[in-house]
């Protein structure tokens, strides 16, 4: 059953009433300018006090009685076959309770799991690993993607090292190149980067009979539950996965990894709970990374700044894993009448990649936004005006103008004209990301006699503030304060939810929470109606009291105490997206950077960001998301790179000293503007922000550096050595 509702959609200042179809029981979407009491307010995150006082328990903090400590023996070679393994000495080592040799006997990257140990202490487990005698047959390997593409390179997969993934075109690209006023071609490179979430990866497994509980630092309790059940050959109903607090994820905890079933198998073998936490080095080798990319970009335009053609040829390596695409945003961000995209995955003997905050988009923006700047330069046009001219999104065009005004884009100098040894430059880039959420998540809201509202949802809060947003939305619907609602999440015994990634969470779970709270309220008012002698539809509730239009209000408890069990529950499920205003969130960022041409140091001075993410449930937390994305983007542009020694197939910097991430001294001034589009995809009108926030940053930094120097560095990160090299040979555009 569905019904019609009227909703105002559109961009600020130009909202337009539109009719949308809603499921029968779905609450009407809150109007984008509705006068809400809890939603839209700067409310400190509800788990803040636990986190600042050390009370918040993360997976890495858990200890249970009788718990053993697990450790994993890893293959030191990038490609090898296990010839023999002798675990006798490890098994005899005092304190060792279980030794496990894994089934796989051929390893395609250094760090691959070979065997595992559970022991009374971690030190004892690590000693036992050294007592395992494993003999490996070294096999030919290749870790450099450029080498891996060559004929005769050591094979990573039987089907070959190169896998064409995308091949699409529209229009006659070659004809457009011939007839355009200017054509620019360049090759852009981005490195393998690491998620480096501070809480690493790990599990604690405990068996009760044939049932296993796994505490896991994950972004996806249900996915881990199903994968673990499959791996152990037991039904998902025999597996419970719990994650209370998580110390970051950024995409690296979206899937089960081998340490989880290893912990469960060790625990079964040792007949005791096993905690298996990866150390920082292991974390950096085997738990995922952002794939590299080599983007050959050819772009053309006419004198008036109209883009005419784009050729996008890109490949990258995610080690033993595919998915190295960069063209995701390319067809949508700017209009290209003719377009050709060809992409390849290149497999190498290196740790597998996985999604990392805005996968592919962060990389793709480097090539696309860099090429647009170069073309604008060649045409003698303002690169911002070229973007606005070719941008199909009315939202982003408005954002570009707002951002430019706030930033002072008019003060941008022609490239290479900044005087003195410290040269300043300005750059800009845009972003597009779906962010509208998906159906599926379920929420249960319980109103309890004697006080308290509990909200249950098997989603995860990985630091984005999901707990707080859920509490706000339920509180708003029930006429309560945020402190009246206790949110329980991160447990596969709770109602189903999706993984926390892809900027899906807020847009997918807050509408379910609102539906659940509305259902609980309806149930409450239905029971209150006969007591008050009025129709339920005429009743309202706030502050745990139910009021009739005329006459006295009664407390919730008067109704709830009459219900068996003393509580009323409401359930809600996220409906499929309604027909919304504009698919895809839009954003843009402006960056001013300073380059010291004597040292090659780059310093980002300030950033202005404008982002649309529908309704902002909590501006305080939303700003944290945006500013965190910006700073991670600067970090990617200037500092981050996993360094591989291709001669030995080993990662040289698997630690936080040599793998640099942004710190307190490198933080610029940041100005953030929400652009509250009434998107209309769901009943809260929330859209995601996690990924959009990082998408434009690195590209805008690279463009600012090019503007400062009058020379572009095509290879991230923009480290001093590359800056100084580029200044010595300004005409050496790589081809």
């Amino acid at each position, binding site marked *: 059953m569905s019904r019609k509702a009227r909703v105002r959609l559109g961009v600020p200042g130009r909202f337009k009433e539109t009719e949308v179809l809603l499921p029968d029981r779905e609450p009407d979407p809150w109007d984008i300018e509705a006068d809400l009491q809890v939603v839209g307010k700067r409310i*400190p*995150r509800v*788990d*803040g*006090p*636990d*986190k*600042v*006082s*050390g*009370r*918040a*328990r*993360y997976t*890495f*903090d858990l*200890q249970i009685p009788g718990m053993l400590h697990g450790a994993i023996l890893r293959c030191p070679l990038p490609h090898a076959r296990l010839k023999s393994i002798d675990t006798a000495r490890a098994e005899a080592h005092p304190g060792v309770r279980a030794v496990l040799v894994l089934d796989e006997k051929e390893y395609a990257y250094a760090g691959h799991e070979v065997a595992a140990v559970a022991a009374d202490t971690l*030190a004892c487990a690590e000693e036992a690993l050294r007592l395992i005698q494993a003999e490996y047959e070294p096999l030919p390997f290749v870790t450099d993607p450029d080498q891996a593409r060559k004929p005769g390179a050591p094979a990573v997969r039987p089907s070959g090292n190169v896998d064409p993934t995308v091949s699409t075109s529209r229009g006659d690209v070659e004809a457009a190149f011939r007839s355009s006023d200017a054509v620019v071609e360049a090759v852009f490179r981005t490195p393998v980067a690491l998620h*480096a*979430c*501070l*809480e*690493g990866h790990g599990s604690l497994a405990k068996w009760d009979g044939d049932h296993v509980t796994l505490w896991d630092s994950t972004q996806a309790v249900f996915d881990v539950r199903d994968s673990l059940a499959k791996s152990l050959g037991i039904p998902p109903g025999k597996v419970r996965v719990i994650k209370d*607090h*998580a*110390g*970051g994820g*950024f995409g690296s905890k979206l899937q089960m990894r081998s340490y989880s079933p290893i912990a469960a198998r060790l625990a079964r073998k040792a007949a005791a709970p096993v905690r298996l936490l990866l*150390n*920082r080095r292991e974390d950096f080798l085997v738990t995922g990374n952002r794939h590299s990319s080599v983007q050959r970009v050819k772009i053309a335009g006419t004198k008036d700044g109209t883009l005419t053609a784009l050729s996008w040829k890109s490949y990258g390596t995610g080690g033993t894993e595919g998915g190295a695409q960069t063209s995701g945003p390319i067809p949508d961000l700017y209009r290209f009448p003719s377009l050709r995209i060809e992409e390849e995955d290149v497999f190498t003997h290196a740790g597998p990649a996985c999604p990392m905050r805005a996968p592919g988009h962060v990389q793709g923006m480097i090539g696309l936004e860099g090429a647009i700047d170069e073309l604008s330069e060649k045409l003698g046009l303002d690169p911002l005006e070229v973007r606005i001219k070719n941008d199909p999104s009315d939202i982003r065009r408005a954002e570009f103008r707002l951002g430019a005004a706030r930033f002072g884009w008019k003060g941008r100098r022609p490239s290479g004209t900044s005087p003195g040894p410290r040269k300043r430059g300005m750059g800009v880039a845009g972003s597009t990301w779906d962010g509208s959420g998906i159906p599926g998540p379920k929420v249960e809201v319980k109103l309890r006699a004697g006080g308290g509202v509990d909200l249950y949802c098997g989603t995860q809060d*990985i*630091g*984005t*503030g999901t707990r707080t947003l859920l509490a706000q939305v339920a509180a708003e619907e029930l006429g309560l304060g945020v402190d009246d609602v206790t949110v329980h999440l991160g447990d596969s015994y709770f109602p189903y939810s999706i993984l926390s990634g892809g900027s899906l969470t807020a847009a997918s779970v807050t509408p379910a929470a609102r539906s659940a709270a509305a259902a609980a309220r309806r149930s409450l008012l239905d029971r209150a109606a006969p007591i008050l002698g009025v129709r339920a539809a005429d009743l309202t509730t706030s502050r745990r009291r139910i009021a009739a239009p005329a006459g006295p209000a009664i407390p919730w408890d008067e109704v709830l105490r009459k219900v068996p069990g003393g509580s009323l529950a409401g359930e809600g499920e996220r409906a499929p997206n309604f027909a919304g205003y504009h698919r895809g969130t839009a954003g843009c960022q402006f960056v001013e950077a300073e380059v010291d041409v004597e040292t090659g*140091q*780059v*310093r980002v001075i300030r950033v202005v960001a404008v982002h649309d993410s529908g309704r902002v449930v909590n501006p*305080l937390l939303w*700003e*944290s*998301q945006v*500013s*965190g994305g*910006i*700073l*991670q983007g600067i*970090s990617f542009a*200037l500092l981050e790179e996993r360094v591989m020694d291709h001669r030995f197939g080993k990662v040289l910097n698997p*630690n*936080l*000293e040599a793998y640099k*991430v*942004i*710190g*307190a*001294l*490198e*933080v610029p001034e*940041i100005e953030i503007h929400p652009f509250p589009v009434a998107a209309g995809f769901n009943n809260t009108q929330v859209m995601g922000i996690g990924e959009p926030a990082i998408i434009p940053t690195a590209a805008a930094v690279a463009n600012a550096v090019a503007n400062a120097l009058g020379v572009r560095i095509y290879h991230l990160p923009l480290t*001093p050595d590359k800056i100084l090299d580029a200044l010595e040979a300004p005409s050496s555009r790589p081809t």
Partner: protein
Amino acid sequence: MATRDRAPASGRGATRREFLTGVTGALTAAAVAGGKILGSAGEGATAKPIRGPGKTKITIDVNGRRHDLSVEPRTTLLAALREDLRLTGTKSVCELGQCGACTVHLDGAARYSCLTLAVEADGRSVTTIEGLASPDGDLHPLQAAFVETDGLQCGFCTPGQVMAAAALLRRRPDPKPEEIRAALAGNTCRCAAYPKIFEAVALAASRIKKRS
């Protein structure tokens, strides 16, 4: 961005830089006492008998309570706090002095507990994040300010950030913005909550000043 390496020493008992400098010194002059390398002033190598390799008894005052522990000499203060005393607010991330998540106070000064052996803390006083709030549970002004400004996201680095900031405010009650940054330069926040962390420290400083 090598500026980070030029950060002022920030007044800790031993910053990573000083520790590394000390190690280099030790390699060239083998006579340098282990205790001095790690910055525990006044505790020469000959002052106490050699311990280990088995367990040895130590007494540490943690958050105002005396704890008698039996630890191996290789046990870090971090491991003793987390595993033996179950004070898991102090986080373990790199175990190499590279991130600051394990920052505690040793005799009032900020220390990386992963670079401090438990035996070094013998007879000394340690404050962890669990000991920062008042005994009746009221948050320390810094903790309250971190919550209020949202100076955190995942929260995993937060105890270390708060402890580093608390050490700063003890020695510089009215820090300049650049002093706040310098004091936190050894504490990595991967969520990059830095702007609001700076705001939190400045807010707490102003409130503490008003109160006293």
